[in-house]
């Protein structure tokens, strides 16, 4: 893990924020970022969409959640930043430990949790504003910019972190909706990174994109993990999981079936459902 940064090809953009933290994160590799304990999800009090998932995610890692459609992987992801609470009649059970706080059961500041656990959605969903405003909006709303120069700096830093700066630096005032799909998705990543999250959730971020844009997002995800952020990526594309992730967890019918280092999951799957899935018997 630690080596990846060193042999990363000459990045056009400046190194990502807060160097000291990155270093600290590397020094204690395998520091836990977020951990779920028996997490489950109920809809309408009786329909259980997710059963008893216990997973641990580490900083500086890319974790992939794979499985066929409707297996609960996205539902699980939406538990981690409590977005499921926005769905009426949806209830999360079990616990999710985030820096020593159980965000499911304890009284927490939901807004701070979501600020530091960022999320990128399946469809690129930039705000219908300029590129600059897309990144600046949340920064301003959270009072994270002291003045306009500072805001400009933070916007640039975030766009660089999402490897988008060079493409858009001259058009910051243009509408974000004029960007290509891949650029829009990286803009969504940038506006999340601007808030300096330590966990980044990506819900099938490439499903609406072409292969080249997909590649760019994957590289970006890797690079973000290398700065010490825990990246959790949901995908139904096994190749993508194999390319980008360090650990992989397989979900099936609302359960987490098997988890482990990505290489092991794809080369020596233990559970027969996972074997069948990997060999393409169902999708």
């Amino acid at each position: 893990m630690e080596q990846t940064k060193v042999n990363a090809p000459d990045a056009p953009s400046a190194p990502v924020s807060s160097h000291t933290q990155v270093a600290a994160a590397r020094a204690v590799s395998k520091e836990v970022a977020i951990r779920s304990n028996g997490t489950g999800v109920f809809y309408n009090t009786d329909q259980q969409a997710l059963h008893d998932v216990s997973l641990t995610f580490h900083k500086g890692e890319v974790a992939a959640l794979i499985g066929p459609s409707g297996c609960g992987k996205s539902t699980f992801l939406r538990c981690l930043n409590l977005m499921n609470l926005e769905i009426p009649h949806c209830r999360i059970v079990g616990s999710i430990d985030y820096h020593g706080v159980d965000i499911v059961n304890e009284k927490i500041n939901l807004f701070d949790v979501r600020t530091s656990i960022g999320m990128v959605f399946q469809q690129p969903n930039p705000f219908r504003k300029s590129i600059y405003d897309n990144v600046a909006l949340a920064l301003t709303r959270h009072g994270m910019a002291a003045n306009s120069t500072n805001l400009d700096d933070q916007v640039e830093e975030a766009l660089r972190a999402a490897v988008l700066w060079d493409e858009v630096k001259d058009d910051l005032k243009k509408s974000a909706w004029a960007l290509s799909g891949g650029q829009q998705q990286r803009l969504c990543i940038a506006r999340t990174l601007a808030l300096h999250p330590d966990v980044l959730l990506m819900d099938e971020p490439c499903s609406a994109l072409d292969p080249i844009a997909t590649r760019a997002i994957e590289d970006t995800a890797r690079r973000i993990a290398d700065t010490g952020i825990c990246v959790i990526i949901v995908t139904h594309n096994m190749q993508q999981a194999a390319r980008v992730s360090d650990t992989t967890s397989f979900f099936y019918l609302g359960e987490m079936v098997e988890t482990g280092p990505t290489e092991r999951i794809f080369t020596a799957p233990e559970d027969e459902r996972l074997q069948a899935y990997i060999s393409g018997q169902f999708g």
Partner: protein
Amino acid sequence: MANTATPQPAPRLIDPDAVVAHVEKARRQSKAATVILTAIAGAICVLLAAILVYIISAGASKAFDPAFLTSPPQQFKEGGGIGPELFNSFYLLVLTLVISIPLSLGAAIFLVEYAPDNWVTRAVKTAIEVLSSLPSIVVGLFGFLLFVLQMSWGFSIISGALALTMFNIPILLRVIQQALEAVPTDQRDAGLALGMTRWETTVHILLPCAMPAIITGVILSAGRVFGEAAALIYTAGQSAPALDFTSFDLTNPACPWNIWRPAETLAVHIWKINSEGVVPDLTAVSDGTAAVLVICILAFNLIARFAGRRLSKKLTAE
């Protein structure tokens, strides 16, 4: 269908001629229906054009006469104008919008963003629906009871504005609600996922997206308010005291900005002089007033169309 006409060696269960005849009949029917429907659509366009042309041409001589537009009305002799009525109409409209826009905006945000799925929300929704289907005369009579009598504000601009607010709330609420609901949900999700509150998400993300539709709806509703009379005859009253535009004494009945004075609007004026029938040049005055009213409403419509489009460009940086 064509192959039914080609003879088959198999025993013929259907008579090909009958089929052809049937298809022909269906085709003829279809053509006739198209013609009739087109005629109906054409008739509606012609009807509107005729109405507009009639109103404006009948009232043109008065409506473009500055003296008519500025002078006060006359009770028993010819040559009365509609100066105070014109002012009152706009003043009431502005006051009504100032009260009803924030209220409807708030209520719409509540219904779209906050409303829990329970009986309270259902009660609110039902109430709004009831309000939207109430005859405006009933709303006016309620205003008469509550504002004119109970609050003893008398026939006054404020009573009229509040009655019009009740008339306008359901219209505006529906427009704003639809505009907010038309914003894709992923915009809302994105805002919430960035740790913003519902309020911030609504104010900073959803409302800018919905604003063009809201502005268009507000201006169109303004047209409705501008032409409303039934809700006003027992709230804002049917008399228009002469206005003194040099007066800024808010207690002076002649002060145009005084909200405690009675204020007849253009629409009420048309109704009143026609039902009293004592003004000698009744037809000319009411035709002129109607023309002014309709021209204003046409203007609202045009502005609504252009404002929506312009604003949309500006807000979305496109």
